[in-house]
């Protein structure tokens, strides 16, 4: 079979196909270089505190896999469960957050309500003054959330998949998906044709373009999502802080950079760069929440192309074409889900049927109406 896309999700799927299902005649084709797309461009935040049952189940599966993934892949992923905090700045925020905490607990996801005093104890650098424009009234907290080294995860999966016999082919851009009688028969790439009875589209921001080669129009819109890092600083920020109202999320990487992100650039785009006002806004938000950051300097900004679905949930499962599978639409929040995404995609491909965890994320939900609306659950664009 062929996996289109050599990013985190595609490499994870290849690994689990080989490990769990004994399927090793797998080619991962990547138009650029391995792990050079969104898995190299995210902010590496990991959490599972989503509102709806379907989301909590798949993201919690991912978080549980993260907890043993370094050993599994024999690669130090620098997975650090330093907690993820979601700040509340209004009565509406507080009600929404407490509802989500209760929903999380019912789903076995660790979630706590933090008072302002609790926040001061866990993350003393947040400005908790009552007289600022958006005073902090409390926060959600998931202690098991945190960050990891995104590149290490992708490289770890690539190495492990390679060791099990998977072929990783770089510089191979797919230009056609061949079909006969409603089933896929292969893909045409810039490095030649590959015959395949099964093909999975795991192409993130380019998923809708690849799917159109098979005659499938996906309900996805591609946008730049920007992030930035500061220069290296002494350890100052002990957790991950997100704020919807002020709109930024911030953590500190192991090496010392402050890592920040916020929302997408609104216009559709494939240029892997965005507009400067998006960066200005998230820096202003960060300084509002963390006055101590005011003299930090931006080291680097960048953008990735994210594929956003109408309900902010992924599309993982079968497609209208036989033997063609979809794992896309992860939008702004796919990094954290990588292990579970690859795991359920491998199950779906091997059995030609979805796993229980990805059954709700089928493409059909857009015509059945069973949407999984996660626009609000992330705190920020996630």
């Amino acid at each position: 079979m062929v996996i289109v896309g050599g990013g985190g999700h595609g490499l994870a799927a290849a690994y689990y196909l080989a490990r769990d299902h004994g399927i090793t005649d797998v080619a991962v084709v990547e138009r650029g270089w391995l792990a050079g797309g969104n898995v190299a461009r995210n902010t590496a935040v990991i959490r599972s505190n989503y509102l709806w049952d379907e989301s909590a189940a798949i993201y919690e599966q991912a978080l549980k896999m993260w907890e043993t993934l370094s050993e599994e892949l024999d690669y130090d992923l620098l997975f650090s469960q330093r907690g993820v905090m979601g700040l509340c700045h209004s009565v509406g925020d507080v009600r929404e957050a407490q509802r989500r905490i209760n929903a999380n607990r019912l789903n076995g996801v660790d979630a706590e309500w933090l008072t302002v005093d609790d926040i001061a104890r866990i993350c003393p650098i947040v400005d908790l003054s009552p007289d600022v424009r958006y005073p902090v009234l409390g926060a959600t907290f998931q202690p098991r959330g945190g960050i990891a080294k995104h590149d290490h995860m992708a490289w770890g999966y690539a190495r492990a998949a390679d060791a099990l016999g998977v072929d990783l082919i770089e510089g191979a851009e797919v230009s056609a998906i061949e079909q006969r009688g409603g089933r896929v028969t292969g893909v045409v790439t810039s490095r030649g044709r590959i015959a395949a009875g099964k093909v999975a589209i795991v192409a993130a921001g380019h998923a809708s373009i690849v799917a159109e080669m098979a005659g499938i129009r996906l309900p996805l819109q591609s946008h730049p999502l920007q992030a930035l890092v500061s220069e290296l600083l002494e350890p100052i920020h002990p957790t991950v802080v997100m704020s919807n109202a002020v709109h930024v999320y911030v953590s500190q990487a192991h090496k010392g950079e402050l890592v920040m992100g916020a929302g997408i650039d609104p216009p559709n785009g494939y240029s892997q760069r965005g507009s400067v006002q998006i960066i200005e806004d998230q820096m202003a938000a960060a300084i509002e929440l963390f006055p101590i950051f005011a003299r930090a300097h931006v080291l680097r900004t960048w953008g990735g192309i994210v594929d956003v679905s109408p309900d902010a949930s992924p599309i993982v499962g079968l497609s209208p074409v036989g033997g063609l599978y979809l794992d896309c639409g992860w939008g702004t929040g796919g990094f954290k889900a990588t292990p579970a995404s690859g795991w359920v995609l491998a199950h779906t491909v091997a059995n030609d049927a979805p796993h229980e965890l990805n059954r709700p994320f089928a493409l059909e939900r857009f015509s059945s109406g069973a949407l999984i609306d996660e626009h609000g659950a992330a705190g920020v664009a996630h």
Partner: protein
Amino acid sequence: MLRVPCPWCGPRDEIEFRYGGPATIAYPSDPDAADDAAWAAFLFVRANPKGPIDERWYHVAGCRRWFDARRDTLTNEFLG
């Protein structure tokens, strides 16, 4: 930052505008005959090309009028 060509005000900075997404979304011509798949396509499926796209813009901090523009999503060049 994009310079967006408002047909009434001329090229202005992107921060003056709200993005309206892909243009030319036709309401189903015979709504009573449209099945679930047709409604899903109308509600959720939009053009997402890597290249020229026709899209809606709203000059919210200017003339407050909507207009269509054509832009290349890879180069960000407005194509008139």
